[in-house]
């Protein structure tokens, strides 16, 4: 099927497809810093912060003007020698915990953090009970046999 397309058309098609993919690469990353360590911090923090206008994207993924502005703030704070924690606090003070993709350990968030463990314990408990019950029913020797 593909062979019926003339060679020059195939080349043109390929070029078009490549061109269409270029904007996807162009989000940010004009390098913010020459220093690779600072650049790495910059990219890392950007990937942790939520863009609040486009809620399921980080500010590293989004080119909304708010995301651009927040990247500028991060860049300037890193340049000013602020620590990662200070930058996160700056964002949380203004936008609340929701701005962080990785929620902090605060009393409000304890249940959120504990939920996976609690659900795992609950699941294990239900599972064990179920297996024991099955074993007890399957065992014709007596109801206690499965419990040993």
């Amino acid at each position, binding site marked *: 099927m593909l062979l019926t397309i003339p060679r020059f058309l195939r080349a043109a098609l390929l070029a078009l497809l490549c061109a269409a993919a270029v904007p996807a690469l162009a989000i940010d990353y004009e390098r913010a810093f020459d220093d690779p360590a600072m650049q790495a911090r910059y990219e890392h923090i950007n990937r942790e912060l939520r863009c*609040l*206008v486009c*809620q399921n994207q980080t500010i590293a993924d989004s080119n909304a*003007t*708010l995301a651009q*502005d*927040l990247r500028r*703030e991060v860049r300037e704070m890193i340049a000013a020698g602020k620590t990662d924690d200070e930058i996160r606090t700056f964002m*949380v*003070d*203004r*936008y*609340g915990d*929701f701005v962080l993709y990785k929620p902090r350990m605060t009393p409000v968030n304890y249940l959120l953090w504990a939920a996976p463990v609690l659900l795992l314990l609950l699941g294990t408990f239900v599972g064990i009970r179920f297996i024991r019950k099955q074993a007890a029913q399957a065992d014709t020797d007596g109801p206690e046999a499965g419990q040993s």
Partner: protein
Amino acid sequence: MLKFGLPLALFALLGVFLFVGLQRDPSYVPSPLIGKPAPDFNLPSLQDAAYPVASKELLGRPWVLNVWGTWCGGCRQEHDTLLAIARTNAVPLIGLNWKDDSAAAKEWLRALGNPYSVVASDPEGRVAIDWGVYGAPETFLIGPDGTVLFKHIAPMTMEVWTKEFLPRIQAASAGATSAKG
């Protein structure tokens, strides 16, 4: 009975959570600024860049900060409501012109009418970030002591104004006069 009871109860609980979740607006992010001191700003006025708009000068009475831009559809939608609110002279209505073109903003106010006592110009959006603004229009109510009392995220309506803003303005004004007297 118990065999079905527990899964059924869990299912019902999950159903309640999901149902409540459906009623909530995920684009609404509560502001951590409520009850905290309003972030200070000192910005050039939109109408005359030589004339600064400083938040400190507004202390002593309740005031409203409305974040807007000519690029924002919701701002056009709420504009007539803001004009009506301004006519009641309840509180000073301060505009924050957010990431906008000054010429376009001035033209907007000239053509549609100006509800604001004064408009602060924030073309770089730095003050907006300090206030935790993420989507215009947003409207803040600030108390006489400079505390943020309330924030409305969405176009202003008369219903929101009379239900949420006016009672708080009255309470704040009463508090301020009794503290002075």
